[in-house]
């Protein structure tokens, strides 16, 4: 059935047909017809953000926590350019979002009109795909295809740029099932390679599963299959920052996060393993450290849906191109059919070795004196919230790494953080998006004061929609990670890494009508956290913490996995040599 309607109406109709419940956006001249249509319907809820960057991060948080694509709607020119950081963030972390941008009418394109910019040109390198729709008849098929492309294969952000005359004009609406697409990435892995991996698993003496965000992107079935595989083989499992929650932190085989600020036992195991099974991770430089010394003695298998991730930086022996859930299902079947064999004796020895490394207890700390250690604050937050239906977002910096180390994630889609791009200002709007997707859940943004200030305007959004997001700010009055690197690398010259002229966060919260809590005493911390949890509304929690705490363990840049810096007593002077100093 074909229907005639205006382009603006098509946008709303397509969103409804795609099952979209929430749109994050900000109006402007070039999207007024769409806003007019949104006004005249009740199927889609529009959340008015305070800045377009907030809209895109909120859409990311929504997407990551629900498994459904997030949608943002912004105007032309500055609306679109403000969305660029969020788009790039979503591209780096493979988050499926659909961003609709308004554009000046087609007959004015190219004339440097008011609020005209080449949005598809600007967003081409920071989207998976984008379109400028010049005919109203093409609008509905493009919208449907956009959702398909954003969510299939390796997920990512897409942009549809819609000129205002296309929104006003009447055209024919095309339904989703009528749209043909040639974009159908391969999801099934090569059975020969999968068998090869099953064989390698049977003989491995020191195996390890190295999992990443791809497991979470593949959907809940992938996490389920992964748990089954880990349980059946008894192999240890570590994960990247993006993959936390794909295997439960309380699981028997969990050896913690790996990487630059990963756990000692996880990094040592990666270095010494003889079979590395990479599932949906991408050998990022935060993970590998020095490339030529990365896990030198191991056979490496890599399961990834993106062919360009395979053999990009690390040469692998068993490449498997496909979707994690599909491949794991086949792998489990093959391995079971071949007799469920592992080298139990040697894997047991391997576990003894790992347990010895665990005894280093690299996350230990002592809360002494009257100043709250940030680690203590997170340990208490974990203790007091782990039984809740809890979602965590973070900003970027030391607090992010500490949150990854000290909070435990039992399920996928519970941990929203900016991994690839490292976007300060991500966490607060992301928490708003998560709360929109899970109205009754406890949503906490673990933040640093500097990151939080980057998108603080969204407190207005949280208030307007009654979103009880908890902003847990570890306030050390420093750009902590910058300060740490200056200590390690730049002779303790702390150039511009102080947060000067900080606001009174309690008053700031109150100015927006939210609740503010300040806590500077470890003895009061539990009560203060409980007060935060009990408040039915947005809370700004200003947790004043130790100002010079460094984030450990740490693999200094340019060093291999088995040369970690551990704890406060580590010799940090000259820890990074000049060849490592050029890396970030």
């Amino acid at each position, binding site marked *: 059935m074909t229907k005639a309607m205006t382009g603006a109406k098509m946008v709303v109709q397509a969103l409804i047909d795609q099952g979209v419940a929430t749109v994050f956006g900000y109006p402007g001249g070039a999207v007024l017809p769409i806003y007019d249509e949104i006004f005249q319907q009740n199927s889609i809820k529009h959340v008015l953000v305070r800045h377009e960057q907030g809209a895109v991060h909120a859409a990311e948080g929504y997407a990551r926590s629900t498994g459904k694509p997030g949608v943002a709607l912004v105007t032309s020119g500055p609306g679109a350019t403000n969305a660029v950081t969020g788009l790039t963030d979503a591209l780096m972390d493979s988050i499926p979002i659909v961003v609709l941008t308004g554009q000046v009418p087609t007959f004015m394109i190219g004339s440097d009109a008011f609020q005209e910019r080449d949005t598809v040109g600007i967003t081409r390198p920071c989207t998976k795909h984008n379109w400028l729709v010049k005919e109203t008849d093409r609008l509905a098929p493009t919208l449907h295809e956009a959702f398909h492309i954003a969510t299939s294969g390796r997920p990512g952000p897409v942009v549809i740029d819609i000129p205002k005359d296309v929104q006003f004009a009447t055209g024919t609406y095309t339904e989703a099932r009528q749209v043909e697409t040639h974009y159908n990435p*391969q999801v099934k892995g090569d059975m020969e390679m999968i068998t090869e991996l099953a064989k390698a698993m049977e003989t491995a003496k020191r195996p390890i599963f190295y999992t990443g965000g791809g497991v979470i992107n593949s959907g809940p079935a992938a996490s389920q299959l992964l748990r089954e595989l880990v349980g059946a083989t008894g192999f240890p499992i570590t994960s990247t920052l993006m993959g936390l929650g794909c295997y439960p932190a309380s699981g028997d085989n969990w050896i913690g996060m790996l990487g630059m600020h990963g756990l000692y036992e996880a990094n040592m195991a990666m270095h010494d393993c003889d079979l590395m099974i990479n599932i949906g991770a991408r050998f990022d430089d935060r993970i590998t450290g020095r490339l030529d010394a990365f896990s030198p003695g191991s056979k490496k298998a890599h399961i990834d849906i993106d062919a360009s991730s395979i*053999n990009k930086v690390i040469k692998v022996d068993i490449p498997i191109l496909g979707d994690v859930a599909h491949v794991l299902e086949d792998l489990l079947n093959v391995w079971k059919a071949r007799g469920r064999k592992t080298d139990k004796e040697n894997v047991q020895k391997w576990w003894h070795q790992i347990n010895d490394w665990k005894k280093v207890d690299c996350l230990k700390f002592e809360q002494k004196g009257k100043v709250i250690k940030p680690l203590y604050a997170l340990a208490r937050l974990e203790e007091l919230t782990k039984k809740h239906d809890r979602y965590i977002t973070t900003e970027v910096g030391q607090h992010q790494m500490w949150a990854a180390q000290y909070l435990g994630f039992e399920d996928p889609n519970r941990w929203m953080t900016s991994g690839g791009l490292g976007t300060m200002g991500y966490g607060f709007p992301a928490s708003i998006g998560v709360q929109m997707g899970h109205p009754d859940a406890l949503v906490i943004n673990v933040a640093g004061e500097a990151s939080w200030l980057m998108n603080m305007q969204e407190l207005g959004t949280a208030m307007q929609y009654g979103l009880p997001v908890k902003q847990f700010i570890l306030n050390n009055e420093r750009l902590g990670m910058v300060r740490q690197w200056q200590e390690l690398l730049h002779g303790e010259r702390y150039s511009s890494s102080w947060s000067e002229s900080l606001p009174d966060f309690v008053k700031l919260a109150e100015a927006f009508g939210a609740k503010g809590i300040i806590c500077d005493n470890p003895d009061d911390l539990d009560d203060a956290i409980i007060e935060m949890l009990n408040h039915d509304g947005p809370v700004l929690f200003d947790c004043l913490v130790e100002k010079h705490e460094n984030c450990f363990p740490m693999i200094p840049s340019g060093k291999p996995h088995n040369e970690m810096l551990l704890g406060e007593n580590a010799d940090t002077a000259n820890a990074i040599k000049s060849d490592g100093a050029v890396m970030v």
Partner: protein
Amino acid sequence: MSPLKIKKGSTSHSAYDLRPSFSDKEEQHTLAVLVENEPGVLARVIGLFSGRGYNIDSLTVAEVDHLGHRSRITIVTSGTPQIITQIKAQLGRIVDVHKVNDLTVEGPSVERELALFKVEGTGDHRIEAIRLADIFRANVVDSTLNSFVFEITGTSEKIDAFAELMQPLGLQEIARTGVAALSRGT
């Protein structure tokens, strides 16, 4: 079997199957990229090369199937085998790209380039120029009393050689189309 134990005729993607082992040796490859003839598709391909620091030695693009809405981009690029593999994989993930063929490794192929040469000169130089043009099977497409424009087709090497010979004979300008290439046989 390849160094990575992938059998010939494996069911995976073509570009992916042809992954060579890592080596530092620079190679030149000719890639044929069949794309959707959409606005911006060339910008996506070029942006990929500039954004990731890959080389473009030559690039040609034109519509090859009007009804099917397809264009063919022929790219001559150079890099280590690992980089070439990355380029193919990165091209393959562009949504508008239908197919990536590496003509250099996928069996024999023919490559041709067309070039126009403007040569100015009189007397012996002029006679020598037209004599060489004849040897190279170049056509004269424009002539004045003291200049010729030659049209020549052939491999890039042939055109390079012709340019070298024309240099002392009054070569003024060259326009080259870049490489067009097809695999041989069926």
